[in-house]
């Protein structure tokens, strides 16, 4: 899937280009005449209106809801919250890295030219192409200790009594959630990294071949240095997306057993709507800000100062 080529050549982020490049001859820049300036403003107003009404206002409202410091001390003394914070950290550390590293390796595998690898790629992206809900519900049922496919298969093939994956142990359940998340999202990042690999000029590999670099050396000396920036940006983006991932946890484990596998995103919704404490829910989510804000700043800088080619 040559993503980079799909829309006509190298895709770059125009707003992210260096200022030198942007200072090319342009018709309108700087000298928009009176009525043209009005038009330009009129064209941008709809988006600004959406941004103000549905982003700025909710964010401000959220900050206002979660303004009371007492909420945070309440959270700190709540064992469910503390456990969810730990879960979130594990979810991010294990989930994101396994997923991204797997995607990096598999993108190399999908560079192979065999026909069956190409067909396999089409199947492999299915989890990503499908809506999240059906698959996560299916996984939830598949992991049912009594009637699920996994334990049925374990019994039929090896006469092993499988555990109650989601019902008995926090670690089994959390592991299942992380595996489901990887199942759903690794294909997406594989496709991105595959596009990145395809953008590496073939001559570099030929030169490396000439110098006798093969296998691992090809990877460490050619592929990885060129892919490193993309890999980093993707990892950061994926960290933020994973932090906000609601569906995996909500539908696979639902926080069970005994509310031990919630993450901040699902606990926030639970506190706001099931416990009916919107302020506490907002505070739960806001407590992720110390992690979110540096991530966002680094990511926005990274996207603005480097030309990310995807």
């Amino acid at each position, binding site marked *: 899937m040559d993503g980079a080529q799909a829309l006509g050549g190298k895709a770059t982020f125009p707003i992210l280009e260096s200022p030198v490049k942007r200072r090319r001859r342009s*018709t309108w820049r700087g000298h928009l005449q009176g009525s043209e300036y009005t038009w*330009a403003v009129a064209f941008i107003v709809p988006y600004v209106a959406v941004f103000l009404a*549905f982003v700025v206002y*909710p964010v401000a409202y959220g900050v206002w809801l979660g303004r009371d410091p007492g909420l945070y001390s309440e959270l700190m003394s709540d064992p469910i919250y503390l456990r969810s914070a730990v879960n979130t950290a594990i979810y991010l550390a294990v989930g994101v890295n396994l997923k991204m590293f797997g995607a990096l390796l598999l993108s190399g595998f999908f560079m192979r030219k065999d026909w069956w690898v190409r067909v396999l790629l089409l199947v492999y992206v299915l989890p990503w192409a499908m809506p999240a809900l059906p698959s996560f519900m299916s996984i939830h049922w598949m992991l049912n200790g009594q009637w699920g496919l996994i334990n049925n298969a374990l019994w039929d093939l090896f006469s092993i009594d499988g555990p109650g994956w989601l019902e008995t142990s926090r670690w089994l359940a959390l592991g299942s959630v992380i595996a489901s998340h990887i199942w759903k999202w690794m294909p997406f990042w594989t496709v991105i990294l595959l596009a990145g690999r395809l953008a590496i000029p073939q001559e570099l590999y030929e030169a490396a071949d000439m110098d006798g670099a093969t296998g691992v050396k090809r990877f460490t000396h050619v592929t990885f240095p060129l892919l490193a920036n993309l890999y980093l940006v993707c990892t950061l983006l994926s960290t933020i997306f994973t932090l906000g991932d609601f569906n995996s946890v909500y539908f696979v484990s639902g926080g069970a057993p005994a509310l031990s596998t919630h993450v901040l995103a699902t606990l926030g919704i639970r506190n706001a709507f099931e416990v009916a404490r919107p302020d506490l829910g907002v505070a739960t989510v806001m407590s992720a800000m110390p992690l979110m804000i540096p991530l966002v700043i680094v990511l926005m800088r990274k996207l603005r100062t480097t030309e990310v080619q995807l």
Partner: protein
Amino acid sequence: MSTVALGGPAAHRRRNYRLRRGLGEAVALALGALILFWTLMPIYNIINVALESRGDVFTTTIWPANPSVESFWIVFTQGYWYLEYFWHQFGNSLYIGVATVVITLMIGSLASFSIGRMRLKQGWLVSNAALLTYVIPASFLAIPFYRIMHIYGLSNNLWSVIAAEVTFATPYAIFIFQQYGVTIPIELDEAARIDGASPLQIYLRIYLPLMAPALVAVGTYALLLAWNEYLYQFLLLSSKKSMTVPVALAQFLNSDEAPWNYMMATAIVYALPPVAIYYVFRRRMTAGLAMGGVKG
């Protein structure tokens, strides 16, 4: 090792090479089989359960003992009380999807025209605002968003969901449009401008037609985003008649003994349209993908 001595060093190398290649092939095939197994297991489970009859669901077989399409029939005829309004809900999902596409394309293309082509001086501010929206997880905004929709008087209204989906789809639209817009020569605008065309005319007659591929890509993205999204639809839509398919699907989980075969049949009917659309527009969709991890 004794055979090596017979062949000499060249034959040795060749043999070694062939052996390594054969081994590589075998490893690749094994990895391929593993990927196939890993990917298809949950999907096999959906199909398996959907084909089972009511009694088979709670058995320990790993394939349907008496496969039947009864569950699909129940879904199509709305023959179960959770599925009472299935086609109506399907229509709601479609309505939200189409409205999201149209509005996202309109707002996104206008904004990108103003920023990228007319080069409005304050455009970078808007670009950054869009980038920021893109990296805020949607689920973190859900609680205040829900309250605000009540303030706007849009509770239990399809338009509240459309507003949410448009909010999260437009930033992506703006990026892709700007990205793609760079490939259209600015001289075209210049020429039209000299001929006395107004910015609106340039936007309609030059910009939009030339942007068609990007419009298709972003339109597909917005459609899938709106169709697949769950959290906002769940929070904002409460009555059976205003629900969308994913919300109705999750409703099944509320009953004590969920009819899993009906649920999985519903899931298949729900998943087929986006999967079909994905594979049809796959090549276009992958444009600038890193920005397009379908959120939710």
